[in-house]
């Protein structure tokens, strides 16, 4: 079923979640380094942590959306993932994303990439699939050459929506428009950096013309009198969406009502979804949603919220980084993992330990009731060699023992991540069981220097653990949530 404009709801948003890394670099920091800052309208950009990528950010946003909706991942019929920066160029990430979110093995999965409108394409695909319910996740962390204006703008973030046939916010209209505009922003095969020819007037005209035409499809556009409370518009920088306001038929205040680019930077395929989530979180009722992918094509969706859908949008970032730290976090000046080997956990062995890598699982002893992590072998409490009942732990736990591995002291398989992120904590965490009790789990502490103390409460998050033979292992780390 293709979205139509017959006035009936095409689908609905049950809840929204969003995530952004805690690291921020200011425009002033970049300007100090380069003598200029080439991304207008941006105050700060979000910088992915050393162990973050589109998949980990997508998992974080997805978990928040599901939590806000009070929907279990196991209830989902549909999962869509959109990013222009997949951690690997081939390999279906929706399997791992789904596993991390406990999505059923038989659920429909779709991936969208190669265009910053991937996020709005994923939303449109969910409308066509009409799941009850489904989850749409958009996550991105584009980058350019450090001297390039696209790198000055580059940010990071993710948004996710639980969608279904009915909900507090409805998609009431959808349209798209394509217009071939080669030479606007693009990324070459084999490259992880976006670039562009910098033909300014051509680029701006392509953007405005394409998004305007898509907006016309949902009743907006330069000549319309339609009104919206907010317009979530693709934001490759902080100026382009405002320049397109006339073409969209909205005023700049409407664009500003849904913008995240000034604080997160260019979030690629997650840009427009983050704007939509922000608008929903702010309580806006009628929201124009416009995604754009250079090359070029645009999607327009119209959302009307009868009531505010639940949202979990935590986009604050309090970890200011210098430009040197930015270059390290981005891996621009770090050496890569050294030769010399590293702990070997074979891929089949890793596979056998899933899905407990995404959320710790313990074995409950049928004889003493004690919890043992991992759920294999003899009971860690009573020593009986039993058949465990596997239970899910967490997500919260309490630090029992902790250290911080000083810079340069990491094992070789963690050396590159430490070079990027600096000294990191390693804790043994008593992670809560579902019916009381806990099991002790060794966890790396995410987000750099925030090594907690014994007794502090931490929460399990999914990050990159390490990469060996080109295969990245994703798994649980601990994120400090502060003392009681």
């Amino acid at each position, binding site marked *: 079923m293709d979205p139509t404009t017959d006035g009936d709801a095409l689908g609905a948003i049950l809840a929204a979640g969003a995530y952004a890394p805690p690291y921020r670099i200011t425009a002033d920091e970049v300007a100090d380094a380069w003598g200029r800052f080439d991304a207008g309208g941006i105050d700060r950009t979000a910088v992915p942590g050393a162990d973050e990528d589109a998949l980990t950010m997508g998992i974080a946003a997805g978990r928040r959306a599901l939590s806000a909706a009070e929907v279990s991942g196991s209830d989902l019929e549909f999962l869509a993932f959109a990013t222009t920066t997949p951690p690997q160029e081939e390999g279906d990430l929706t399997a791992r994303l789904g596993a991390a979110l406990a999505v059923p093995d038989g659920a429909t999965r779709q991936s969208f990439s190669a265009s910053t409108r991937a996020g709005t394409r994923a939303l449109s695909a969910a409308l066509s699939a009409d799941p009850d319910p489904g989850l749409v996740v958009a996550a991105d962390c584009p980058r350019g050459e450090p001297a390039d204006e696209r790198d000055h703008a580059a940010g990071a973030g993710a948004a996710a929506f639980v969608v279904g046939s009915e909900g507090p916010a409805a998609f009431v209209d959808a349209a798209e428009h394509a217009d071939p505009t080669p030479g606007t922003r693009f990324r070459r095969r084999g490259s992880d950096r976006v670039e562009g020819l910098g033909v300014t007037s051509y680029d701006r005209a392509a953007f405005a013309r394409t998004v305007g035409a898509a907006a016309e499809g949902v009743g907006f556009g330069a000549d319309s009198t339609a009104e919206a409370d907010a317009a979530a518009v693709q934001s490759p920088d902080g100026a382009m969406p405002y320049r397109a306001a006339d073409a969209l038929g909205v005023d700049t205040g409407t664009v500003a009502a849904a913008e995240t680019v000034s604080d997160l930077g260019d979030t690629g395929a997650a840009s427009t979804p983050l704007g939509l989530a922000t608008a929903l979180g702010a309580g806006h009722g009628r929201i124009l949603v416009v995604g754009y992918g250079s090359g070029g094509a645009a999607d327009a969706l119209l959302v009307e919220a009868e009531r505010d859908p639940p949202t979990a949008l935590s986009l604050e970032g309090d970890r200011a980084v210098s430009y040197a730290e930015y270059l390290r976090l981005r891996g621009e000046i770090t050496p890569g993992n*050294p*030769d*010399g*080997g*590293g*702990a*070997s*956990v074979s891929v089949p*062995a890793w596979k056998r*330990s899933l899905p407990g890598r995404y959320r710790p699982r313990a074995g409950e002893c049928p004889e003493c009731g004690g919890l043992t*992590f*991992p759920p294999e072998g003899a009971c*860690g409490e009573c020593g009986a060699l039993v058949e465990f009942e596997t239970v899910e732990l967490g997500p919260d736990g309490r630090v*029992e*023992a*902790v*250290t*911080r*591995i*000083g810079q340069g*002291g*990491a*094992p*070789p*398989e*963690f*050396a590159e*991540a*430490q070079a990027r992120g600096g000294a*990191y904590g*390693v*804790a*043994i965490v008593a992670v809560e069981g579902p019916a009381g009790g806990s099991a*002790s*789990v*060794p*966890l*790396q502490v995410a987000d750099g220097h925030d*090594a907690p*103390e*014994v*007794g502090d409460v931490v929460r399990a998050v999914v990050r990159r*653990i*390490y990469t060996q033979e080109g295969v990245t*292992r994703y*798994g649980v780390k601990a994120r400090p949530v502060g003392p009681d």
Partner: protein
Amino acid sequence: MRDAYLVGAGQSDFGSFPEESYRSLFRAAYEAAVESVPAGIDPEAIDEAVVGTLGVGGRQIGLPGPAVTEHVGLSGVPCTRVENACAASGYAVRQAVQAVRSGMADVVLAGGFEVMTDASGDRTRWWLGVSGETEYERLSGTTFAGVYAQMASAHMDAYGTTDEHLSQVAVKNHANGAKNPHAHLGFECTLDDAMGAATVADPLTLYHCCPTTDGAACTLVASEDVVDGYTDDPVRIAGVGAASDAVGLFQRDTYTAVPASREAARRAYEAAGIDPGDPAEHLDFAEVHDCFSIAEILAYEDLGFCDRGEGGDLVASGATELGGDLPVNTSGGLKSKGHPIGATGAGQITEAFQQLTGRAGDRQVEDPVRGLTHNVGGSGGAAVVHILEREREVGS
């Protein structure tokens, strides 16, 4: 069951020796052990060999035992390699005692070796982590130092142990190691040196961590039936205790103790007839496994030298210094003498032999009768304790 006796023990220098091989280091230890036998020994008398090594560097993963025993001319002698991480050669000595007591052998060579300084820092860090629990502990990004640092954090939180206590262990052991011509880091350090050194894994500084070391050590264990042919002043292996535990720290019942050490000590004390309520009263010195300074404090408590939580106070009291009530790590310990993983346990036995036979030079304890050695594998997955005693007092 026959008694087993230590009739000889020797070690190579411990240190960094790019010009040496694992075989040449083993030869030095072997020759020192043979030469230490008071009445001499014909290598033909050696019935069996047990050799401990982790295999750091991967240079001879398979059959490292025969690779060294054949090298020193023990042709055809059955040789078994023991691997229990840092407790490899402590367990090798235990295997020698078992062979003697069982009657299968009258004289057994038990030793160990490791070469750790001929690889890049990155490669060495990989090897140093191989004795941690791999699938979860290691993948939490931790290191060997990191695991002991976690124990330190828990001990500090539970008992108020301080950075100063950790540093006092380093100062004491360096003071002893400075008197040991075989020591890797045979120099003294100050409290300020130790406390102010760079952090390796918080709260452990560089001076709270043992070095990576090349070296070898050998012991000769003989049965009561033949001991008189080798010495008039025999050192009896009065008690042996060993125990295992989960490999990963997170899998253990406590982080403020090493349960395997406690159990190994209990068994050794029982075998030696030592009152477990006050073992220090029966001991004249101890060589304990101080791979990190917190490990020595834990050892005090696990071995019953003080009550739980009072290890920091014990080192602060000076009781474990040379000249104190119970000198600990007169050799300099792993901290100053060095820690060539597979050689460490046999190296501790060598120090005990030298102390009990009055050959410890400037670090000699006055007239010792009974000493203890304590060797731990990994962060506590294996532990072995030996009680050694002279049957005749020095000077008698």
